[in-house]
């Protein structure tokens, strides 16, 4: 964490919904090359943090820096282009597309999206599409979805839809990916595979991850450092062991156990 700017640095980020403060001056770092964890009880503001960092919500205060560059307030499509991608907690697939199309559409900088090229540069676009198709199929194979490439996205199970969310993020070519509960609703076997996939993408491809996850054992295995949030604030940061033993974190989770925030 010394020297180079963190992949992602959030400072004093504040987001209100009417009178309700969903993010109350959140500050945290995601070190370059890390798989950073983000935990906290329901309603802590974790997904809101993702939406605000990724440009879907405008913060009232605070800054977001990507490798040192201030990107606060940039729209999501600009952030996508400069290498920040996110997934949704509840999968949002393009319903009237196949699984493969859901992935192909996520590649940035497609010449075929710029009129009038689709009309006049047919050969070039066909080549681009063929390459994109191979990339999408490679990602699908990695996610055990190869057999579903041609299926409509609506035909997938909830767990498979989560995988397509992950697949779309991978197609972005982003160097920093925000994963919102990538393993929720996925069976144990698949959960192991997703964990292994994330670890190998991190190790071999050098992708930095910020992962929201409720399965604390998974977080302990995968993530370092870990940030814990409650009521719109970061209440603890460190290794999973440190965060787990933090009295404030224990209290936040206890509070949830007595009066579920959902």
């Amino acid at each position, binding site marked *: 964490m010394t020297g180079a700017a963190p992949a992602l640095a959030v400072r004093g980020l504040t987001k209100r919904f009417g009178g309700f403060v969903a993010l109350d001056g959140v500050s945290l770092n995601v070190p370059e090359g890390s798989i950073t964890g983000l935990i906290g009880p329901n309603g802590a503001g974790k997904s809101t943090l993702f939406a605000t960092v990724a440009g879907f919500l405008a913060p009232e205060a605070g800054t977001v820096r990507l490798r040192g560059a201030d990107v606060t307030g940039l729209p999501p499509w600009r952030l996508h282009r400069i290498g920040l991608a996110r997934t949704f907690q509840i999968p949002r697939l*393009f319903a*009237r597309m196949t699984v493969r199309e859901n992935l192909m*559409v996520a590649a940035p900088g497609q010449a*075929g*999206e710029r009129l009038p090229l*689709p009309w006049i540069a*047919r050969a070039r676009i066909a080549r681009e*599409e063929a390459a994109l198709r191979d990339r999408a199929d490679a990602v699908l194979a990695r996610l055990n979805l190869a057999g579903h490439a041609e299926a409509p996205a609506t035909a997938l199970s909830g767990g498979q839809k989560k995988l397509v969310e992950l697949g779309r993020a991978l197609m972005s070519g982003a160097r920093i990916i925000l994963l919102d509960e990538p393993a929720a609703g996925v069976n144990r076997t698949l959960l192991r595979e997703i964990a292994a996939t994330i670890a190998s993408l991190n190790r071999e491809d050098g992708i930095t991850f910020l992962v929201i996850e409720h399965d604390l054992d998974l977080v302990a295995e995968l993530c370092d450092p870990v940030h814990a949030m409650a009521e719109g604030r970061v209440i603890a940061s460190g290794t999973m062991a440190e965060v787990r033993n933090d009295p404030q974190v224990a209290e936040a989770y206890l509070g949830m156990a007595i009066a579920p925030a959902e």
Partner: protein
Amino acid sequence: MDAALYAATLLTLAAIYAAFSLGLNLQWGLTGLMNFGGLAFVAAGAYTAALLTAAPSGTHVGGFGLPWWLAWPAGALAAALLALPVGAVSLRVRTDYLAIATIGIAEIVRLAVRNEDWLTGGPLGITGIPRPFEGLGQPWGQLAYLGLACAAVAGLYALAEATARSPFGRALRAVRDDEEAAKAVGKNPARLRVQAFVLGAAFMGLGGAMMAAFFKFMSPEALEPVTVTFLVWVMLIAGGSGNNRGAVLGAVAVWAVWAATDWLAAQLPGELATRAAYVRLFLIGLALQLILIARPQGLIGERIGTQR
């Protein structure tokens, strides 16, 4: 020969409506944009082409006596230029505003056409619009014009298909299916929507130019919201929204039904005939409901996965 002329007229109008419905399919079928003001863009194309091709007249500016092959693209361009500010302003806010804005712009254009005599000839309209091939005499001139209209629609269909199947079309479908997810995969929804809206309006403008040349006369009477806006929606939804072949098929089928009800109404005794205007509309609406109950996706709906 009368039958041949009648069939040629019916098919030519069906082809003109196919241009409108292909344009609406780009906007609604592919992108999910509610354009309830097709009339505005048809009018822009029709009057632009009419002014450019008609002989000089004392009652309005122009005409300029230009050939159709210059005037028709100009008509498409005029419709696109009208759509650009409408789309750019309303689509930046919220997509439902486009529905309201297009209703508004259609009313404005309708009133302007009626009242700006210097430009449109007002209620008297623009006369002496040449129709390509009319020098061939009947019925050959009209058949040749039908051929030209079909060729134009074939060109529009090819362009619409190239658009829908391209990565650009895929991005439009992404925006249509889920705007938030589209942003998450790097798409700028407002920008894509404006492009689709303008392109669809250009199709309608070209159809308008074809209509003006076919009628040889352009007046406010030719621009009824019931046909130029509402009937086009019926065509697209009945034919199959999201499918260009559905858009063309819907135009031909619904226009045939529309023409048939016109003929039926003419057979009615006088008192009933005056009611026929709205009975016709009722029948078309009923037919649409029946189609949608039997086939919610239209005659040929969107097929998932046929686009590469």
